[in-house]
């Protein structure tokens, strides 16, 4: 494991250097604050940010991704054959993501890369990607990542972790991928004090997180007990069933497949979908198992906090980033719902 220390004044230079061999995505300051997106050549990921509305999900699971194209025009070569869309193999790096967002990528991987099935579109993006984390010294008030098995300094899912130590960024290259990136960027090697400083910053940052959730009792309840709990209609009353929470969520992985055709040429693409929408669950027969708005809201929380928990036995499908809490137009708060679920005592 290599220690890293880089002066803030050298950051832009290092990023310029690394862009010779990597395509970068990262936080960029725009008019309304920082957004997370693919960077153009010469753009520097800005690590001095507090939060980005959208997460690193876009990099491994883009909102819209073309899977293949086709043509039914018999005058064209290769007609009636599905043609793979060219993929840029240049290594990519998501620079400056929060450590808990990296955990979200691992959660996505559970769905897209199982032992039996590997989603080629996700896989090629995932394998190609180096995750360079920026630890969070001042977590936002809605952040509850430490309750979700991760945290503002969680190293477990990153290739590199960096942290703000005043006039320099310090950190560690955690994996081989990370070491390669550090070498390409020419990060200076840090001294032995780095580890101690990181530990100190971590303790401070985690101490600032006041927001907590627990799901220990959810685990022991049956799905049906929770499903039929009486609080759902009330908890979900305010929900307007928009897709804000699902799109902002770094772990929501649902997608919809659509053909877009013009004349005889077309593409098949997949787009983010949201379980909040009625068209998500309606069957071809016209039957909709989640016809009522509150049932769809229940499904989202049940998936995140119960079905996932039972299926993978590895915590909840939430990294505690707090995006859904701060972006929800009607203030539905997953922390409150989780508590409600955990506190529920089914009558025997």
């Amino acid at each position, binding site marked *: 494991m290599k220690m890293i220390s880089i002066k803030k004044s050298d950051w832009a230079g290092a990023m310029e250097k690394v862009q010779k061999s990597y395509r970068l995505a990262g936080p960029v300051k725009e008019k309304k604050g920082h957004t997370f997106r693919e960077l153009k050549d010469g753009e520097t990921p800005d690590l001095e940010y507090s939060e980005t*509305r959208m997460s690193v999900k876009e990099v491994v699971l883009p909102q819209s991704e073309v899977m293949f194209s086709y043509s039914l025009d018999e005058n064209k070569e290769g007609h009636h054959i599905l043609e793979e869309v060219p993929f840029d193999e240049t290594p990519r790096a998501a620079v400056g993501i929060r450590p808990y967002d990296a955990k979200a990528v691992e959660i996505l991987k559970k769905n897209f890369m199982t032992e039996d099935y590997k989603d080629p579109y996700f896989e090629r993006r995932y394998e190609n990607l180096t995750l360079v984390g920026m630890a969070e010294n001042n977590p936002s*008030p809605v952040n509850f990542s430490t309750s979700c098995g991760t945290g503002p300094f969680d190293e477990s899912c990153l290739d590199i972790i960096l942290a703000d130590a005043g006039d320099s960024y310090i950190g560690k290259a955690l994996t081989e991928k990370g070491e390669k990136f550090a070498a390409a960027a020419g990060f200076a090697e840090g001294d032995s004090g780095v580890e101690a400083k990181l530990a100190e910053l971590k303790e401070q940052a985690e101490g600032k997180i006041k927001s907590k959730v627990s799901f220990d009792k959810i685990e022991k309840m049956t799905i049906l007990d929770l499903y039929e709990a009486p609080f759902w209609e009330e908890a979900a009353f305010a929900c307007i069933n928009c*897709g*804000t929470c699902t799109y902002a969520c770094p772990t929501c992985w649902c997608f919809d497949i*659509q053909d*877009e055709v013009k004349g005889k040429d077309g593409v098949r693409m997949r*787009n983010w979908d949201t379980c909040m929408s009625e068209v998500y669950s309606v069957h071809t027969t016209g039957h909709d198992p989640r016809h009522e708005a509150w049932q769809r809201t229940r499904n989202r929380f049940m998936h995140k906090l119960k079905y996932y928990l039972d299926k993978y036995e590895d915590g909840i499908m939430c990294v505690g980033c707090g995006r859904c809490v701060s972006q929800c*137009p*009607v203030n539905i708060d997953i922390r409150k719902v989780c508590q409600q679920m955990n506190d529920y005592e089914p009558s025997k």
Partner: protein
Amino acid sequence: MDAYTDKIKEISKKILSEGKVDVVIGFRKGTLGYMSEPYMAKSEKEAENLVFDCNCRMNLVNYVTNRKDKVGIVVKGCDSRNLVTHIIENKIKREQLYIIGVPCTGLADKKALLDLAEGEITSVEDDNETITIKGDGFEKKVAKSDVLQSNCKTCIKRNPVIFDELAGPEVAELEISDRFADVDEVEKMSADERWNFFGELLSECTRCYACRNACPLCYCPTCFVDESRPQWVGKSDNETDVLTYHFLRAFHDAGRCTDCGACEAACPMDIKMRYFTRKTIKDCVEKYGSEAGMELDKRPALDQYKINDPNEFIK
């Protein structure tokens, strides 16, 4: 604002206990200091949770569409105009409603509050003149006029147009000198400038449809963007499809929009999509002399034909 809250609780308990309504739809305190959550009280006990303040940004008329029971509902001036439109469009019957009107001095812009805060906001207090933002280790007082939502600055009807009872004394209506200054600004631009302006405006739209779903006018069983047979519009993040959505939504709301601002307040990306709807409001005012939802016996501007409707665009 506490006086409003007390009065709303009092009225709600009364109408619930007397059986005048089955439920009261209002707001309760949110988990975040700058938010209030739409809430349905079913009993006198639950009515104790009701609040009203400058964080009640959603339009509750959105929650009564097609309800079959007797409903008490808390409405601001703009919301009450949507209620009128709802009644005209047979989405709810007047007899089903017990309307608790709130004479409104405007809502606080969420983004403005967050920009002023120096940390976590724990409460936002509003005495109709001053907003006090309290938080973790800070307290700030600002004039309410400085943090108003932009639609509240050009509000033409702060007092409800229809109600059974008011939660407070009527307030003075605003005197607005330049109601459509923002739309005028855009109209002054060249065609190319306008095109670029709207491209930029919508560049961050993720099509979460929070604006549509927060809108009481958008009650179609299946929205045209969700239809798949036929598919009117693509479903990806393609910029033409995004523009088509916003553009057509504004058309559908033309003559009906009351500029309640719920769409913008709901947008997670702070997109100012009211430019579109406000243009339709301006046109309806200028061309037809019509404001949406002011009277129960007046249908929306584009829902009726008059022999003297302006037709200079037909050559």
